[in-house]
């Protein structure tokens, strides 16, 4: 059970090892608060959909399983959207179109198909929590690097620290879309290197 939980952190990290769900990863990683918000939203959807898919796996016919999974995921996304719109309107506005796009996040459909449709509900929830934490961690890591170097600040929802020196002359390219792609390339290379050494 513990293995199901921890494999998402590093060994099967959804962002850096499996390279899934990149649109939100790069799209909202301009600030740490957005990254954590997106991570939590995706984790909630992931836990809900993995649990339901694994409960219903014996009742869903094989030929229509993908559309069924998508409907289950879309319903959870809608719930998360409505809750976030009601209680965290600022975050809702900041995440914008990337929030409904959780539906087509390959991590969630991928886990439903590859794991939840074959395993028990408890194991699926563990897997979802682990993958969700792995996703949130990598998202936050990218966001932290981009925010510190590209904007010279560290923000966590309400409070914000401006870093002296960097705040006045940030490396703006890292805050721009191009910087996200470059950073992703270098981080992926770093993870490849670490994996190679382990072998």
């Amino acid at each position, binding site marked *: 059970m513990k293995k199901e939980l921890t494999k998402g952190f590093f060994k099967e990290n959804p962002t850096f090892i499996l390279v899934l769900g990149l649109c939100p*990863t790069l799209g909202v990683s301009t600030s740490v608060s957005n990254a954590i918000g997106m991570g939590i939203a995706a984790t909630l959807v992931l836990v809900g959909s993995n649990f339901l898919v694994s409960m219903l796996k014996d009742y869903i016919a094989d030929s229509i399983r993908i*559309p069924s999974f*998508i409907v289950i995921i879309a319903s959870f996304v*809608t719930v998360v959207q409505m809750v976030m719109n009601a209680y965290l309107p600022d975050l809702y506005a900041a995440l914008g179109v990337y929030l*409904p*796009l959780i*539906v087509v996040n390959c991590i969630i459909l991928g886990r439903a198909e590859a794991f939840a449709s074959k395993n028990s509900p408890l194991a699926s929830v563990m897997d979802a929590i682990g993958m969700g934490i792995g996703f949130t961690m990598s998202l936050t890591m990218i966001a932290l690097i981009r925010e510190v170097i590209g904007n010279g600040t560290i923000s966590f929802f309400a409070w914000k620290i401006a870093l002296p020196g960097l705040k006045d002359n940030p490396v703006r390219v890292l805050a721009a879309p*191009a910087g996200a*792609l470059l950073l992703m*390339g270098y981080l992926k290379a770093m993870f490849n290197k670490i994996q190679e050494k382990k072998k």
Partner: protein
Amino acid sequence: MRLVALLITYVFINNFILVQFMGLCPFIGVSKNSESAIGMGLAVTFVTAVSSTVCYLIYYYLLVPFSLEYLQTVVFILVIASLVQVVERFIRVTSPSLYKALGIYLPLITTNCIVLGISIININEKYNLLESFVSSVAAGLGFTLVIILMSNIRERLELSDVPKSFRGLPIAFVTAGLMALAFMGFDRAIISNLHLA
């Protein structure tokens, strides 16, 4: 004029891959050779154009009158998933040669963020039907342009000496990043300079 401005916006200025990061998975996955890149690009353009028009009609003539706007996400993804199936069948029957070229890419398109993304953006930006159609065709064309450029670069990368840890995905991301830097040259100012807005 507004339509030309929309076209330039979504092909160059707000390019879906390089600026909004939508459709990155197929972009990285299918850009290994230029033939499949063209196939994927055309298939995506076709599906975005059809599905965002259908989504537009369903949203304004079905969801809004019954005030069911909150079902947007669920309905749109269902429309897209079923449309992709219909399009696949239709092409298979009417044009076997086109099916041969696009066939394997069509099922992948359901989970392409661009298709759902542009449908939602059309609603959020309150475009009318013609504007929605143009913006979604432009989104598809922008995707096609970048994926073709990328596939040509990657064909060359195969032959060049890349450090071991960078082989494969990392160098593809770095290349995409450099392309995005170049695309930053397309600024909103283009539209006002050309007197389009």
